[in-house]
């Protein structure tokens, strides 16, 4: 471990000693999410979203395994089996609504997590691999979510599958063949449904594996923190348990509270009504949209309207959509500033919030119909998206003068505490130098 002051697992009970010398699983947990993992003491509530993403993944896996007991992966029965779950299976409606809304909530949490990482420079050295594994998880989530949405075999399922698999046909020469291979036919049909079901069941466990790798990689340097200053000693950290287990538990409760409001009072607010119509291969819905969490990328896909540099517009859209995610892999090397936290980057701060706004606008435009003025707006918004990562971010550090960084985490915490010392719940100023050497 890279923290010599971390608490050591030291089982007192003979049974635990017996276990520890044979299968040191309790030790692993102790060092991973127990008292043996030192965490910067100053991380704020934005750092809760990592744990929340784990919770959301587990909710999806558990409800998904249970739903699969009742689902029937055949084009003639899939829709009926979903309605069977909703009407006949004990608590089936609860499980399905939890799974359907759970997907949306998983993405909400992950988007917050990504933007937190962007704000506090979590992708920068030495955490590049942590970040890249995160991008892998994000890609796997998108694939899993898309295939899951196809399973009920409603109108949006079918036409979503049709549109998304058609993207691959934009690839020159081999595109059509790839698409045919992907759907197992000339249009989405039973072969598509059954393979999507198989993969939809498999990929979450792949995600789980990558999550474990990611936590492993994270534990080498430990978490970033809002100052972006490296941890220097025990005065900068607190053990994960009980301090951050307690804090994360508050976050989990709030998350479940909001999640419950959606499940019980507005379960279809995030879905599309057309998916309650059984799939009809002969009738396209007036306005095909994917699930909301793909909208920013769907907007980029549709933003390319002209053939440019001998590449047709359709292929541009497909390239750009994939590039918009894949460029995140290169982010650690695109950003040349060595200051991690945006709080100390006066210029980048503006561009960061502009990016947040830009992605929200792209999200809105991705759900809007493909007509003016939405198309033109999405062209400008997409242009900013690429400019932000590929042009502005690499150049910015040449112009930006960062604010002075605190010398250490402890110093910044105590400076803040000194300011707040008059508030009733803050500890008396005398208690401030909290950590004994």
């Amino acid at each position, binding site marked *: 471990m890279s923290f010599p002051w971390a608490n050591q697992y030291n089982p007192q009970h003979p049974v635990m000693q017996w276990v520890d010398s044979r299968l040191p699983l309790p030790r692993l947990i102790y060092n991973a999410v127990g008292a043996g993992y030192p965490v910067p003491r100053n991380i704020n509530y934005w750092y809760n979203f990592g744990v929340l993403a784990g919770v959301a993944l587990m909710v999806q896996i558990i409800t998904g395994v249970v739903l699969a007991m009742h689902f029937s992966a055949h084009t003639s029965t899939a829709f009926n089996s979903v309605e069977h779950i909703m009407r006949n299976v004990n608590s089936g409606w609860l499980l399905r609504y939890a799974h359907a809304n759970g997907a949306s909530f998983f993405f909400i949490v992950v988007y917050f997590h990504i933007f937190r990482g962007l704000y506090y420079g979590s992708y920068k050295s030495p955490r590049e691999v942590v970040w890249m594994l995160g991008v892998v998880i994000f890609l796997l989530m998108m694939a899993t979510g898309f295939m899951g949405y196809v399973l009920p075999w409603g109108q949006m399922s079918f036409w979503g599958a049709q549109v998304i698999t058609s993207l691959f046909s934009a690839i020159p020469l081999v595109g059509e063949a790839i698409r045919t291979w992907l759907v197992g036919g000339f249009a989405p049909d039973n072969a598509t449904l059954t393979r999507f079901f198989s993969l939809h069941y498999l990929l979450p466990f792949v995600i789980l594996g990558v999550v474990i790798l990611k936590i492993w990689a994270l534990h080498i340097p430990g978490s970033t923190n809002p100052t972006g200053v490296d941890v220097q000693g025990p005065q900068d950290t607190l053990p994960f348990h009980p301090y951050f287990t307690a804090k994360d538990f508050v976050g989990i409760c709030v998350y479940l509270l909001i999640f419950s409001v959606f499940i019980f009072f507005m379960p279809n607010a995030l879905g599309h009504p057309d998916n309650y119509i059984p799939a009809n291969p002969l009738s396209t819905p007036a306005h095909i949209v994917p699930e909301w969490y793909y909208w920013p990328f769907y907007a980029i896909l549709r933003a390319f309207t002209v053939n440019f540099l001998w590449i047709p517009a359709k292929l541009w859209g497909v390239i750009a959509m994939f590039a918009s995610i894949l460029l995140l892999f290169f982010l650690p090397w695109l950003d040349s500033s060595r200051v991690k936290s945006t709080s100390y980057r006066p210029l980048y701060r503006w561009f960061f919030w502009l990016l947040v706004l830009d992605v929200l606008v792209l999200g809105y435009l991705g759900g809007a119909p493909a007509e003016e003025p939405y198309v033109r707006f999405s062209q400008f918004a997409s242009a900013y998206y690429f400019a932000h990562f590929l042009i502005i971010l690499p150049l910015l550090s040449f112009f930006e003068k960062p604010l002075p960084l605190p010398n250490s985490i402890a110093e910044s915490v105590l400076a803040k505490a000194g300011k707040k010392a008059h508030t009733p719940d803050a*500890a008396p100023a005398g208690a401030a130098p909290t950590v004994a050497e």
Partner: protein
Amino acid sequence: MVRFFGFAAGLVFVIALLVGALMPREAAVPDPIKAIHLPPRHVKLQHDGPLGMGVFGTFDRAQLQRGFQVYKEVCSACHGLERIAFRNLSALGFSEAEVKALAKAREVPSIDPATGEPSTRPALPSDHFPSPFPNEVAARAANNNALPPDLSLIIKARPKGQDYVYSLLTGYGKPVPKGLEVPEGLHFNPYFHSVNIAMAQPLNDGQVEYADGTPATVDQMAKDVVTFLRWTSEPELEKRRQMGVATVIFLSILTLLAFLTYRKVWAGIEH
């Protein structure tokens, strides 16, 4: 290196997008239908609860039964209800014997036990509502090539489903705007997406006779059948809200306890 290639790729993307954005657009042809088409009118129903928030509301059982009567006597001539079994009707307040009688009055497809030929038999409570047409081709053939949709999920399958079905049912008989051609066999209804709908006006005042003496106005019948169809779409609605209120109360207490625990654990620690 990464930055150099990234910069080049970024420039290409930005230029391609800006070329597209600055391209002159052909003036969009205004769609005359869009100007005539109306968004659905809001309908207030008991089960939407106080302020229409959908937190505490429960179905009005009498209204559900009236709505079922409208479906049975009017809609069921063309529209199926295939996801509802007769046994589900006990949720409307019908007794077991009444459910049996309702089922027995309908014939469902069956096989003659002696000859094996397709035939029909009286329905059992476990049977689902028989569809008025054996398949889509027959339905279209009987309806001027229009397909009457199954109504089991209609409220969930349309944006603002309750308002939409209510508006559609009460949206007939309005004057046809100048210049709009209503093709032969279609009917003007501004709430339908193409404003010309194949379904003729289904409800007329006094069309059904309610056992509880409620006057059968078009508005009343539309509200009743919308309530009934909300139930067919979401039969779990009342239980869901009940569990929701309990869950939210429980989680609020748990959140408070979690926060107090957090405060205790972190007492005296600056962060």
